[in-house]
Protein backbone atom coordinates (compact mmCIF):
# COMPACT_ATOMS: atom_id res chain seq x y z
CA UNK A 1 0.00 0.00 0.00
CA UNK A 2 1.54 3.36 -0.99
CA UNK A 3 2.46 5.78 1.80
CA UNK A 4 0.09 8.73 2.16
CA UNK A 5 1.38 12.05 0.91
CA UNK A 6 2.47 14.78 3.28
CA UNK A 7 -0.65 16.93 3.93
CA UNK A 8 0.95 19.97 2.24
CA UNK A 9 1.83 17.86 -0.80
CA UNK A 10 -1.70 16.45 -0.94
CA UNK A 11 -3.13 20.00 -0.89
CA UNK A 12 -0.70 20.96 -3.64
CA UNK A 13 -1.70 17.94 -5.73
CA UNK A 14 -5.42 18.56 -5.37
CA UNK A 15 -5.26 22.29 -6.09
CA UNK A 16 -2.50 22.62 -8.66
CA UNK A 17 -1.22 19.30 -10.02
CA UNK A 18 -4.23 17.15 -10.80
CA UNK A 19 -6.51 19.77 -12.41
CA UNK A 20 -5.85 19.39 -16.12
CA UNK A 21 -7.09 21.52 -18.98
CA UNK A 22 -6.16 19.21 -21.83
CA UNK A 23 -6.71 15.56 -22.63
CA UNK A 24 -4.13 13.73 -24.65
CA UNK A 25 -0.61 12.40 -24.64
CA UNK A 26 0.94 15.43 -22.95
CA UNK A 27 -1.31 15.30 -19.89
CA UNK A 28 -0.89 11.51 -19.64
CA UNK A 29 2.89 11.92 -19.79
CA UNK A 30 2.81 14.56 -17.06
CA UNK A 31 0.87 12.35 -14.68
CA UNK A 32 3.42 9.56 -15.22
CA UNK A 33 6.21 12.00 -14.39
CA UNK A 34 4.26 13.24 -11.36
CA UNK A 35 4.32 9.75 -9.85
CA UNK A 36 8.11 9.79 -10.15
CA UNK A 37 8.37 13.23 -8.50
CA UNK A 38 6.16 12.44 -5.51
CA UNK A 39 8.72 10.69 -3.25
CA UNK A 40 11.06 13.68 -3.54
CA UNK A 41 8.28 16.24 -3.12
CA UNK A 42 7.14 14.45 0.05
CA UNK A 43 10.65 14.15 1.47
CA UNK A 44 11.57 17.75 0.69
CA UNK A 45 8.37 19.06 2.27
CA UNK A 46 8.87 17.05 5.45
CA UNK A 47 12.42 18.34 5.67
CA UNK A 48 11.33 21.94 5.08
CA UNK A 49 8.80 21.66 7.90
CA UNK A 50 11.45 20.25 10.23
CA UNK A 51 13.99 22.95 9.30
CA UNK A 52 11.42 25.72 9.82
CA UNK A 53 10.45 24.43 13.25
CA UNK A 54 14.13 24.23 14.18
CA UNK A 55 14.78 27.76 12.87
CA UNK A 56 11.80 29.18 14.70
CA UNK A 57 13.17 27.78 17.97
CA UNK A 58 16.67 29.09 17.34
CA UNK A 59 17.67 32.32 19.04
CA UNK A 60 19.64 34.92 17.09
CA UNK A 61 19.84 35.86 13.46
CA UNK A 62 22.28 33.32 12.03
CA UNK A 63 19.60 31.17 10.42
CA UNK A 64 18.00 34.18 8.72
CA UNK A 65 21.35 35.25 7.31
CA UNK A 66 22.09 31.70 6.16
CA UNK A 67 18.73 31.40 4.39
CA UNK A 68 19.13 34.77 2.68
CA UNK A 69 22.70 34.12 1.55
CA UNK A 70 21.68 30.73 0.15
CA UNK A 71 18.68 32.30 -1.57
CA UNK A 72 20.86 34.97 -3.13
CA UNK A 73 23.28 32.32 -4.42
CA UNK A 74 20.49 30.12 -5.76
CA UNK A 75 17.97 32.57 -7.11
CA UNK A 76 20.13 35.56 -7.82
CA UNK A 77 22.84 36.33 -10.32
CA UNK A 78 24.82 33.15 -9.68
CA UNK A 79 22.27 30.61 -10.81
CA UNK A 80 18.65 31.14 -11.75
CA UNK A 81 19.10 34.27 -13.81
CA UNK A 82 21.88 32.66 -15.82
CA UNK A 83 19.85 29.51 -16.26
CA UNK A 84 16.80 31.29 -17.55
CA UNK A 85 18.84 33.48 -19.85
CA UNK A 86 20.33 30.37 -21.49
CA UNK A 87 16.90 28.81 -21.84
CA UNK A 88 15.83 31.60 -24.14
CA UNK A 89 18.41 30.24 -26.58
CA UNK A 90 16.98 26.72 -26.66
CA UNK A 91 14.43 27.71 -29.30
CA UNK A 92 15.96 28.03 -32.72
CA UNK A 93 14.98 30.87 -35.02
CA UNK A 94 12.98 28.43 -37.15
CA UNK A 95 10.92 27.40 -34.09
CA UNK A 96 10.22 30.89 -32.78
CA UNK A 97 6.66 31.04 -34.10
CA UNK A 98 5.79 27.60 -32.71
CA UNK A 99 7.19 28.33 -29.26
CA UNK A 100 6.70 32.07 -28.92
CA UNK A 101 4.58 31.69 -25.77
CA UNK A 102 7.19 29.43 -24.23
CA UNK A 103 9.72 32.17 -24.92
CA UNK A 104 7.46 34.74 -23.27
CA UNK A 105 7.23 32.56 -20.14
CA UNK A 106 10.99 32.21 -19.97
CA UNK A 107 11.59 35.93 -20.48
CA UNK A 108 9.15 36.63 -17.67
CA UNK A 109 10.97 34.15 -15.42
CA UNK A 110 14.28 35.97 -15.97
CA UNK A 111 12.59 38.97 -14.36
CA UNK A 112 11.13 36.87 -11.53
CA UNK A 113 14.53 35.40 -10.70
CA UNK A 114 16.06 38.87 -10.65
CA UNK A 115 13.39 39.90 -8.19
CA UNK A 116 13.91 36.82 -6.02
CA UNK A 117 17.63 37.48 -5.78
CA UNK A 118 16.86 41.06 -4.80
CA UNK A 119 14.38 39.93 -2.15
CA UNK A 120 17.11 37.90 -0.49
CA UNK A 121 19.50 40.85 -0.68
CA UNK A 122 16.75 42.96 0.89
CA UNK A 123 16.54 40.61 3.87
CA UNK A 124 20.26 41.15 4.50
CA UNK A 125 20.07 44.91 3.93
CA UNK A 126 16.94 45.57 5.97
CA UNK A 127 18.15 43.24 8.71
CA UNK A 128 21.26 45.39 8.95
CA UNK A 129 23.62 42.48 8.26
CA UNK A 130 25.13 44.18 5.21
CA UNK A 131 25.23 47.86 4.30
CA UNK A 132 25.39 47.50 0.52
CA UNK A 133 24.55 44.66 -1.83
CA UNK A 134 28.02 44.66 -3.35
CA UNK A 135 29.41 43.41 0.00
CA UNK A 136 27.89 40.07 -1.01
CA UNK A 137 30.53 39.69 -3.68
CA UNK A 138 33.02 39.16 -0.84
CA UNK A 139 31.04 36.32 0.74
CA UNK A 140 31.34 32.95 -0.96
CA UNK A 141 28.07 31.79 0.65
CA UNK A 142 26.22 34.34 -1.50
CA UNK A 143 27.94 33.23 -4.68
CA UNK A 144 28.01 29.45 -4.66
CA UNK A 145 25.43 26.77 -4.05
CA UNK A 146 25.52 23.05 -3.60
CA UNK A 147 23.90 22.11 -6.88
CA UNK A 148 26.80 22.14 -9.27
CA UNK A 149 25.91 19.07 -11.29
CA UNK A 150 22.38 20.34 -11.59
CA UNK A 151 23.59 23.74 -12.69
CA UNK A 152 25.78 22.08 -15.31
CA UNK A 153 22.99 20.11 -16.87
CA UNK A 154 20.41 22.87 -16.73
CA UNK A 155 22.82 25.04 -18.64
CA UNK A 156 23.08 22.25 -21.17
CA UNK A 157 19.32 21.83 -21.58
CA UNK A 158 19.53 24.31 -24.39
CA UNK A 159 21.64 21.87 -26.34
CA UNK A 160 19.12 19.06 -25.88
CA UNK A 161 15.63 20.22 -26.83
CA UNK A 162 13.44 23.34 -26.41
CA UNK A 163 11.12 21.44 -24.05
CA UNK A 164 13.72 19.73 -21.83
CA UNK A 165 13.60 22.64 -19.42
CA UNK A 166 9.94 21.83 -18.63
CA UNK A 167 11.17 19.01 -16.38
CA UNK A 168 13.08 21.49 -14.22
CA UNK A 169 10.14 23.87 -14.05
CA UNK A 170 7.80 21.06 -13.03
CA UNK A 171 9.98 19.15 -10.59
CA UNK A 172 12.19 21.78 -8.94
CA UNK A 173 9.86 24.78 -8.84
CA UNK A 174 7.32 22.59 -7.03
CA UNK A 175 9.96 21.96 -4.36
CA UNK A 176 10.52 25.71 -4.04
CA UNK A 177 6.80 26.37 -3.67
CA UNK A 178 6.34 23.55 -1.15
CA UNK A 179 9.41 24.65 0.84
CA UNK A 180 8.12 28.20 1.09
CA UNK A 181 4.61 27.04 1.96
CA UNK A 182 6.03 24.83 4.72
CA UNK A 183 8.15 27.66 6.10
CA UNK A 184 5.26 30.12 6.12
CA UNK A 185 3.31 27.76 8.34
CA UNK A 186 5.89 28.20 11.08
CA UNK A 187 8.28 31.10 10.68
CA UNK A 188 7.21 34.36 12.28
CA UNK A 189 10.08 36.67 11.39
CA UNK A 190 8.56 39.54 9.33
CA UNK A 191 11.60 39.98 7.07
CA UNK A 192 11.66 36.32 6.11
CA UNK A 193 7.88 36.19 5.71
CA UNK A 194 7.92 39.27 3.48
CA UNK A 195 10.57 37.73 1.25
CA UNK A 196 8.74 34.42 1.05
CA UNK A 197 5.27 35.83 0.51
CA UNK A 198 6.70 38.03 -2.25
CA UNK A 199 7.87 35.06 -4.25
CA UNK A 200 5.62 32.16 -3.25
CA UNK A 201 3.08 32.55 -6.05
CA UNK A 202 5.83 33.17 -8.59
CA UNK A 203 7.36 29.80 -7.72
CA UNK A 204 3.89 28.35 -8.27
CA UNK A 205 3.79 30.23 -11.59
CA UNK A 206 7.08 28.63 -12.65
CA UNK A 207 5.71 25.22 -11.75
CA UNK A 208 2.58 26.00 -13.79
CA UNK A 209 4.72 26.87 -16.77
CA UNK A 210 6.24 23.40 -16.61
CA UNK A 211 2.81 21.83 -16.17
CA UNK A 212 1.42 23.71 -19.14
CA UNK A 213 4.40 22.92 -21.36
CA UNK A 214 4.07 19.20 -20.61
CA UNK A 215 0.30 19.13 -21.16
CA UNK A 216 0.27 21.32 -24.26
CA UNK A 217 3.52 20.57 -26.05
CA UNK A 218 4.85 17.14 -25.00
CA UNK A 219 2.61 15.32 -27.42
CA UNK A 220 4.86 12.86 -29.23
CA UNK A 221 7.43 10.29 -28.10
CA UNK A 222 10.06 12.44 -29.82
CA UNK A 223 9.13 15.48 -27.72
CA UNK A 224 8.68 13.47 -24.52
CA UNK A 225 12.04 11.68 -24.69
CA UNK A 226 14.32 14.66 -23.95
CA UNK A 227 11.98 15.83 -21.18
CA UNK A 228 11.95 12.38 -19.59
CA UNK A 229 15.73 12.28 -19.82
CA UNK A 230 15.87 15.59 -17.96
CA UNK A 231 13.59 14.08 -15.28
CA UNK A 232 15.89 11.02 -15.19
CA UNK A 233 18.78 13.34 -14.39
CA UNK A 234 16.97 15.56 -11.92
CA UNK A 235 15.68 12.55 -10.00
CA UNK A 236 19.12 11.07 -9.47
CA UNK A 237 19.77 11.21 -5.71
CA UNK A 238 22.89 13.33 -6.19
CA UNK A 239 21.56 15.72 -8.83
CA UNK A 240 19.10 17.95 -7.03
CA UNK A 241 19.77 19.28 -3.56
CA UNK A 242 17.22 21.30 -1.69
CA UNK A 243 18.64 24.73 -0.93
CA UNK A 244 18.94 26.05 2.60
CA UNK A 245 16.89 28.96 1.27
CA UNK A 246 13.88 26.66 1.02
CA UNK A 247 14.49 24.77 4.25
CA UNK A 248 16.99 22.22 2.98
CA UNK A 249 19.45 22.51 5.85
CA UNK A 250 21.19 19.27 6.78
CA UNK A 251 19.98 17.96 10.14
CA UNK A 252 22.42 18.54 13.02
CA UNK A 253 24.87 15.68 13.39
CA UNK A 254 24.18 14.21 9.95
CA UNK A 255 27.89 14.25 9.25
CA UNK A 256 27.48 15.77 5.79
Amino acid sequence: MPRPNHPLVQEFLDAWVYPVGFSGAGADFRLRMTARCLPVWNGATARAVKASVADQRTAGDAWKIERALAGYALEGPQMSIKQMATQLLSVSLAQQAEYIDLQRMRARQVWDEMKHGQLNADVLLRGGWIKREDELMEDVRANAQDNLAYFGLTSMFLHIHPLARAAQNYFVEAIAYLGITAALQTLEDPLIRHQMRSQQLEELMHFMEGKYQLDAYALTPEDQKPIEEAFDFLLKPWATKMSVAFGGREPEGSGR
Partner: protein
Amino acid sequence: MCYVVCREIDLNAVVIAPEPRHRLEIDMTRCLYPACTACLMYCPAPGSIVETGSGRPLVPPPPEAWAEPRRWPRGAS
Protein backbone atom coordinates in the same frame (compact mmCIF):
# COMPACT_ATOMS: atom_id res chain seq x y z
CA MET B 1 -0.94 31.85 -18.10
CA CYS B 2 -4.67 32.28 -18.90
CA TYR B 3 -3.64 34.50 -21.80
CA VAL B 4 -1.13 31.93 -23.06
CA VAL B 5 -3.55 28.99 -22.78
CA CYS B 6 -6.42 30.82 -24.47
CA ARG B 7 -4.12 31.97 -27.25
CA GLU B 8 -2.79 28.43 -27.75
CA ILE B 9 -6.28 27.03 -28.36
CA ASP B 10 -7.05 29.94 -30.64
CA LEU B 11 -9.96 31.41 -28.70
CA ASN B 12 -8.11 34.60 -27.74
CA ALA B 13 -10.70 35.56 -25.15
CA VAL B 14 -8.14 36.96 -22.71
CA VAL B 15 -7.35 40.58 -23.40
CA ILE B 16 -4.44 42.55 -22.02
CA ALA B 17 -5.61 46.09 -21.30
CA PRO B 18 -3.44 48.81 -22.81
CA GLU B 19 -3.33 50.88 -19.59
CA PRO B 20 -0.05 50.93 -17.63
CA ARG B 21 -0.98 48.09 -15.26
CA HIS B 22 -1.74 45.80 -18.23
CA ARG B 23 -4.74 44.28 -16.50
CA LEU B 24 -5.97 40.96 -17.88
CA GLU B 25 -9.66 40.85 -18.79
CA ILE B 26 -11.83 38.06 -20.20
CA ASP B 27 -13.86 38.98 -23.27
CA MET B 28 -17.20 37.35 -22.54
CA THR B 29 -18.20 37.45 -26.21
CA ARG B 30 -15.34 35.05 -27.00
CA CYS B 31 -15.00 32.99 -23.81
CA LEU B 32 -16.80 29.63 -24.05
CA TYR B 33 -17.10 29.01 -20.28
CA PRO B 34 -18.45 26.64 -18.98
CA ALA B 35 -17.88 24.59 -22.15
CA CYS B 36 -14.21 25.50 -22.06
CA THR B 37 -12.33 25.74 -18.76
CA ALA B 38 -8.77 25.16 -19.99
CA CYS B 39 -7.30 28.42 -18.67
CA LEU B 40 -8.39 27.72 -15.08
CA MET B 41 -6.05 24.76 -14.78
CA TYR B 42 -2.92 26.82 -15.43
CA CYS B 43 -3.64 29.96 -13.40
CA PRO B 44 -1.33 30.20 -10.36
CA ALA B 45 -3.15 33.07 -8.67
CA PRO B 46 -5.79 31.84 -6.20
CA GLY B 47 -9.13 33.60 -6.56
CA SER B 48 -8.12 35.68 -9.54
CA ILE B 49 -10.80 34.31 -11.89
CA VAL B 50 -14.39 34.30 -10.65
CA GLU B 51 -17.65 33.08 -12.13
CA THR B 52 -19.86 35.87 -13.42
CA GLY B 53 -23.10 36.08 -11.49
CA SER B 54 -22.29 33.74 -8.63
CA GLY B 55 -18.93 35.32 -7.83
CA ARG B 56 -17.59 31.82 -7.13
CA PRO B 57 -13.78 31.70 -7.28
CA LEU B 58 -12.55 29.28 -9.94
CA VAL B 59 -8.83 29.21 -9.08
CA PRO B 60 -7.82 26.66 -7.94
CA PRO B 61 -10.44 25.00 -10.13
CA PRO B 62 -13.24 22.92 -8.60
CA PRO B 63 -13.30 19.25 -9.73
CA GLU B 64 -16.28 19.66 -12.05
CA ALA B 65 -14.38 22.30 -14.02
CA TRP B 66 -11.81 19.77 -15.15
CA ALA B 67 -14.04 16.73 -15.58
CA GLU B 68 -13.13 14.61 -18.60
CA PRO B 69 -15.76 16.06 -21.01
CA ARG B 70 -14.48 19.59 -20.36
CA ARG B 71 -10.86 18.88 -21.22
CA TRP B 72 -9.60 20.39 -24.42
CA PRO B 73 -8.42 17.56 -26.73
CA ARG B 74 -4.80 18.06 -27.53
CA GLY B 75 -2.92 16.05 -30.12
CA ALA B 76 0.15 16.42 -32.26
CA SER B 77 -0.62 18.32 -35.44
